[in-house]
């Protein structure tokens, strides 16, 4: 399961090597990275400039951090341009030999996808692989000796961490113009519960909510770093938060996607998008427990218990008419529809905790089918 994989990654990932120690082996791909990693070494952008001298990651100014990351950002142009969909997005190099991490979107659904590097070099990009669950894709361009952001060096961020976001939002930059940089902080961490139009987002994992207006047309696939230019995440899509109905700015932490990227690089990724796989084949139902809720007459009908069938599991557990269901297994149930959804994820053989409001009190009841 996805969660398990992320967990192991967090535990396994090691502190970054001291800069100067440059040979790293990606765990699965097994390829050897060349000695130019933007996050760790003196970036060429600075050397060409002649003015900026790298003082080491910890002492970087904002300007130095930006100069270190910019060479890795890629402007991607593909399909789109109809129905108001912009035909461009952002990405960044994740290997010296031309692998680019970006968002899996309609932009890549094209025979010709063009990747323009920071120095203006244009390449035809080939789709190496993608993971629709995470909505990420890896492209390959035929090049070598490039600067890149090493996913293995990515660090986690905390709320209030200052961040820099690099992307080609609104397609502002072209040719050798550098990508746009925005500044903000991590506003919070949450799981994505968002939608675009009427459709749920495929990715529903952990995200950083950003206190910066990053998620604009064309920005998706860009890089988010801390103020020292250390990689934190990938800029997400334009989405509305399901709970508040507001547009949100978010980034997917690298730890959420690194395993998948490595599998794509190794040619091993097998994607199953079987939604039903998460649901039990025999879910719990209200009928099985002997619960009858009030009729669902309006869109947000509160889940009041209308009747409890005699001798039922619910009656045994002490559920009473007029109890208001507050949550099912820790998940809030603001309306009857939420109760039904919550039930569909509970295996009928498991013990189910529900919380009800009775008068001015909360009660937690345990329900288990006797078979």
């Amino acid at each position: 399961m996805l969660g398990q994989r992320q967990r192991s990654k967090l535990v396994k990932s090691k502190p970054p090597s001291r800069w100067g120690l440059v040979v790293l082996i990606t765990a699965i791909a097994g390829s050897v990275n060349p000695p130019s990693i933007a996050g760790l070494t003196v970036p060429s952008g600075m050397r060409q400039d002649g003015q900026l001298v790298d003082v080491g990651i910890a002492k970087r100014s904002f300007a130095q951090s930006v100069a270190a990351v910019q060479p890795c950002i890629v402007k991607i142009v593909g399909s789109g341009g109809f129905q108001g969909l912009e035909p461009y997005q952002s990405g960044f190099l994740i290997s010296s030999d031309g692998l680019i991490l970006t968002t899996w979107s309609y932009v890549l659904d094209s025979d010709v996808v063009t990747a323009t590097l920071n120095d203006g070099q244009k390449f035809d990009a080939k789709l190496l692989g993608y993971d629709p669950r995470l909505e990420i894709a890896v492209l390959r361009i035929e090049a070598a000796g490039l600067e890149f952001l090493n996913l293995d060096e990515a660090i986690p961020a905390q709320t209030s961490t200052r961040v820099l976001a690099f992307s080609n939002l609104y397609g502002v930059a072209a040719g050798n113009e550098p990508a746009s940089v925005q500044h903000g902080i991590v506003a919070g961490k949450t799981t994505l519960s968002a939608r675009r139009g009427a459709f749920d987002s495929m990715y529903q994992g952990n995200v950083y909510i950003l206190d910066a207006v990053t998620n604009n047309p064309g920005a998706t696939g860009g890089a988010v770093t801390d103020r020292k230019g250390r990689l934190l995440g990938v800029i997400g899509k334009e989405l509305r938060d399901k709970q508040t109905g507001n547009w949100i700015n978010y980034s997917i932490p690298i730890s959420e996607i690194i395993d998948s990227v490595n599998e794509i690089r190794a040619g091993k990724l097998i994607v199953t998008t079987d939604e039903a796989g998460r649901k039990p084949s025999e879910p719990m139902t209200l009928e099985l427990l002997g619960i009858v809720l009030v009729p669902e007459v309006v869109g947000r009908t509160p889940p009041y218990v209308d009747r409890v069938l005699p001798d039922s599991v619910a009656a045994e557990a002490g559920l009473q008419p007029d109890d208001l269901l507050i949550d099912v297994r820790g998940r809030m149930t603001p309306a009857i529809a939420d109760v039904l959804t919550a039930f569909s994820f509970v295996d009928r053989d498991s013990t189910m905790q529900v919380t009800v409001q009775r008068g001015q009190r909360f009660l937690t009841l345990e329900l288990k089918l006797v078979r």
Partner: protein
Amino acid sequence: MPYIFMRSLICLAVCGISAGGWNLELAAQDNPSPSQQNGPDFEQLEEDAIRAAVERIRPALVRFETIGGNRRVSQTLVEAGPSTGLIVSREGFVISAAFNFAHEPTSIVAKLDGGIRKLATVVGRDLNRNLVLLKLELDEPLNLEIPVPAAPATVQVGQTVIAVGRVFDEREPNVSTGIVSAKNRIWGKALQTDAKVSPANFGGPLLDLSGRWIGLLAPLSPDDDSVLGGTEWYDSGIGFAVHATDILNRLETLKAGVTIRPGLMGLTLKGNDSYADPALIGVCQVGSPADKAGLKPGDLIVEINGLAVQRQAEMKHAIAPLDAGMTAQLVVVRNGARVEVDVELAETIEPFDFAGLGMIVRQGNELGAAAKGSAGDLAVIEVFQDGPAAVADLRPGDVIQAIEQQPVELIEDLRLQIVSLKLDEPVLISVQRAGRVISLTAKPRRLAQCGAALREQVANVGPPADDVNSAVLVEVSVADRPNHCWALVPSSLLASRATTPTVQGSQPVDNGATSPMPVLVWFSVPGPLNREQVNKEWESAVASQQAIVLFPESVDETEWGREDFEFAPAAIEALGKSFSIDRNRIAVGGRGAGAAMAGVAAFGERDLFRGLVLVDSPLSKRVTSMETSPAQPLLVLSVQSSAEIGDPSDTLNQRKIAESLDALEIAKFPVERLGLQPGEDWSAAIGTVLFWVNRVDRL
């Protein structure tokens, strides 16, 4: 989110916490102490301060989740996601934004720091700041540091502030930073910040860098005090917070369950530019706090609660932060002397009821053009049969000199004085008649009962007698507006009837010989205007009643929309540049979809429209705010066909019309009804409608 999936993510988050120590270690490695650098690392210091401030407030941050409730608030679809509140006392009182509970949920569950759940109920409301106070059901007092407010004097524009909510994640607050953008916003009730303020932190605190709360984040708007006002500004860089001290000063009131409302005085000022005009009292409503305190028309307000008032907007700044029940200490200048008046503000003012005398008075009109330097005589043009003016023996041709021995010079002043007269109380009117000044005594009635006899007019409008008595459709175009618009103009107005001019708002096209014309803006069916039919139905009435009718077309051929509404004032402006129009006689009307549009326009442009004509239609439900104001008279004429017996849809419509007219009358708008004969088409009443529009400036 699917349930099982979420479980695994909770597990992940727990692991994330355990990985936290590792992160700190990393931070220590990579962030050398300031002494190792050339000066302190300000960014790091600020980041640390932000974290510490959020940590300090965190135990007092409540996450609310609601069960049930409405899907819409005033017809707007609202989400009912989690929201934020701030604990302000150990007994479990929590302050939050009213927006968070505007959907009136069945049950409110509060999650405290650490995940404990408590039932919460709304105990107090502050309608002046759109806040609510909730009480948690507790078995024992809470053990936490009650948030410390920042003294208002310490808050400075430009200082860094932190907006905190508990919405995205129940374990960890969400944080947005910015600066104080301005103080004294929302008429002195809030300060403004560029930190991102949205449903993700409405009801949460705005903190300074040391973790003191400056204010409570809430959607607010300077010109929409409804609970949804200001929500459209979410995450825009324009956010507001109600001062913490203002909240704490009202805490005991809210705890006691009292609903705090804006404090009202019940007076109307002269002039209509609140940023230019002085606060000169025009009307003190009968029985209002202003009336009871002894304020009088003509008083100039110069100071409120120690704040100097030079313009009307400053008065609003001084009054708006005051609640009903509070006292406003006014200093007014009356007859050159400063007078101190204490006004105890009320929570409601009886709707203003227009008084009337049943006559038409105009200034600088056909009965005598204004002499140089004077606005012209206040000449009585018409006296309605059996009205108070007729009973008092006022006559056409009289020139009004004074009311209650106070000289009147301008029609605006006369209007304000007459509409605010006390009903049935005799009033002395001095008029000049045939070279002598005589005094007459009139007893004002409600303006609605002082109208001309409309029904007789229906019969009196016939077809145009000849070519002279005709009207011409003229195209009116406005630069940068996509709308098409036509004006039906009496042909007597046109300098030359040989060519049909196009009005483009630049050159006068009338012959300059006539007095200002009344204007009716008529919203027909959406889409292109059927000019042939319009000519047929309206021409004779326009010619005989001497009024201009403006027919805007909708941009969208299927429905009236916002841009059409915005177009109407622009079209009137354009018309006014080509024809002499009477600003006191501009009305708007329509039938069906056009009537809905007319209602919205009339109530949206109260300074512009003086009359509203609804044909076989109720007032649009989109009109939510109906308040009479002496300075913005609005008369309503309802024209109704005779109902078809037994037609249920007709009966339903009749009922809707009756209900909406009742609501208008309860709000004290002068409403007149014109019923058509069975089988009679409404177009038969067009002449009467224009007759009414012609007299919509009646007193």
